[in-house]
């Protein structure tokens, strides 16, 4: 059976069930790289110039990990999923960049997703990808419909039941994601609610975010993320704050930020990486909004290749202290 490698990085968290269904429907087997490790990050970083952003370095590490494990590497170029809104240049050129810096990679299956070119081009692109497995346009059509259905189910699992992408993927595939679990389960989230905003490849990659979600849960906070909102909620919140979105996946940051700031959570933490252009602009919009509303505590956290987690922990501790001391003060005033 043909093996398709899918790196567990970048857009994996948004589209994995869709991609997996598509390839499996066409009779291929899907291989996913294991969760990020320091070795993967270093190997990815060694292939590119230092200025390349952290998520791309991580992505390349995952690709390297899959070399020798699969017959094809699936790296789509997702240019645009909404009209006139484009993706960041690193994601646009991902297949080409990977080809250039990892020449030993198995052949890369890429597909241009650009809704601006119209339906016809989109279907053509999907057919071109599926044609590698079957000559029957009908079978490709069946596979893509099944894939789309899997995607809708996946999104619904997250927005309706409040699951994170790794949890939803685990639920769908029935196999537990290889993540460290606490033996005693999580403590009761009785101190409040924190919303994390940022791209899924930062929020759910436990290596680069120092197990942020786990840390907050251990501190007795309930954690909400952008995936737990519906596309409509995200879109309308983005429209309220910035009018028209300018980058693909901006809703994860701006829309979720605006939504959660107004929803009465105790705090919002924006996660971004050092050197991400779109994020640095978008997070600033959310910060300004938070400063204007004043009701909800906001902090942005910048992740980089530091190996010690001290800096992140100090900020998180101070942020939670700020929230709890603020609450206590409000309680005193009310009495």
């Amino acid at each position: 059976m043909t093996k398709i490698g899918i790196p567990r990085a970048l857009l994996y968290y948004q589209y994995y069930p869709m991609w997996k269904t598509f390839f499996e429907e066409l009779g291929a087997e899907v291989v996913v790289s294991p969760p990020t490790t320091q070795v993967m990050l270093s190997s990815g970083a060694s292939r590119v110039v230092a200025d390349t952003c952290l998520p791309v370095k991580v992505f390349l590490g995952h690709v390297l990990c899959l070399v020798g494990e699969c017959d094809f590497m699936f790296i789509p170029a997702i240019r645009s999923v909404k009209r006139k809104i484009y993706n960041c240049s690193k994601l646009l050129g991902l297949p080409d960049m990977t080809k250039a810096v990892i020449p030993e990679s198995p052949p890369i299956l890429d597909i241009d997703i650009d809704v601006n070119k119209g339906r016809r081009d989109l279907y053509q692109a999907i057919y071109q990808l599926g044609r590698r497995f079957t000559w029957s346009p009908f079978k490709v059509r069946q596979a893509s419909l099944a894939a789309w259905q899997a995607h809708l189910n996946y999104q619904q699992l997250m927005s309706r039941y409040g699951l994170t992408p790794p949890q939803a993927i685990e639920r769908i595939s029935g196999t537990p994601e290889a993540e460290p679990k606490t033996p005693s389960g999580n403590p009761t989230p009785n101190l409040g609610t924190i919303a994390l905003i940022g791209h899924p490849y930062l929020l759910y990659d436990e290596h680069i975010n120092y197990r942020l979600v786990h840390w907050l849960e251990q501190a007795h906070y309930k954690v909400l993320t952008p995936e737990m909102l519906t596309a409509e909620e995200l879109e309308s919140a983005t429209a309220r704050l910035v009018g028209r979105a300018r980058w693909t996946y901006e809703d994860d940051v701006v829309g979720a930020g605006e939504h959660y700031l107004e929803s009465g959570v105790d705090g919002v933490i924006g996660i971004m990486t050092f050197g991400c252009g779109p994020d640095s602009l978008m997070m600033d919009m959310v910060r300004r909004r938070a400063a204007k509303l004043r009701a909800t505590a906001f902090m942005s956290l910048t992740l980089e290749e530091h190996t010690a987690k001290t800096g992140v922990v100090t900020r998180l501790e101070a942020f939670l202290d700020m929230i709890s001391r603020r609450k206590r003060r409000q309680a005193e005033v009310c009495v």
Partner: protein
Amino acid sequence: METYLGIDVGSVTTKLAVLDGNDELVTYIYLPTQGKPIEMVQQCLKQIKPQLPEDVNIRGVATTGSARYLAGVIVGADLVKNEITSHAVATLQYVPQVQTIIEIGGQDSKIIIVRDGVVTDFGMNTVCAAGTGSFLDHQALRLNMSIEEFARRALDSNTPVRIAGRCTVFAESDMVHKQQMGHRIEDIIYGLCQALVRNYLNNVGLGKEIKPPIVFQGGVAFNQGIVKALQEELGTEVIVLPHHEVMGAIGAALLVHEGMAGSNNGSQFKGFGVSEVKYHTSSFECKACPNHCEIAQLSVGGQALARWGGRCDLWEGSPTS
């Protein structure tokens, strides 16, 4: 006498502060960490002991600063608190109406925004240590003068030169360049102070609502040149408290007093005798998963006291056996 001990182990200096039951400062100590946090905590305890009254009764101990977990295990801390909360609590004790706290230490700098007596926002320098105490020390050393003289001479400047403060590497090359062109050293030093203040306000203070009263603390607040540049740039008075360099330790002591008030438990303080204990630190690479985390271990007489540094919980905290 009922007292509370706050220990702030920063990257460059180690501070101890002892408060009495009324939260008045009894005594404090301020020593360079010299890259040896364990030895310096022991040294500080040894030196502060004779300054305390005979009947001293330590009712609570708290640690803060970047080595707070390490120091906490050594002394038996009742509370381990991050330095942002500690600084805010201490400043609020002395200047209750404070709205902005500027703290510049050896390796990091922070801004804390306070409204109506509670912290509403804070910021810390991100990936770069430009404009912190270490850099000033380094420049003083390069000019072959003490940091005190460096600060004093900044005040003698008439026409400060412009220095790029965005990055310390650029700042240093700018300084060398100006010095080779024959500018007065005083003007270069004060120009550097201005550059660092601008860098601080543009980086750490970015997007923060800086309102008076403004309190400036941390080791760099000793530097009159920086204080002057800060006041000029902000166009308002900046308060420097008498014990500004030990505010983190004072805050930790205040917090442990507050925390112990509600509990009946005694302090876990191991006593001043810990300054005689021989601690041993080592590290190893965990091979349990491909991450190969570096685990640091603190032990006494071959017995492991604490381990940390892993990405998972496998080694974290104190070993139970």
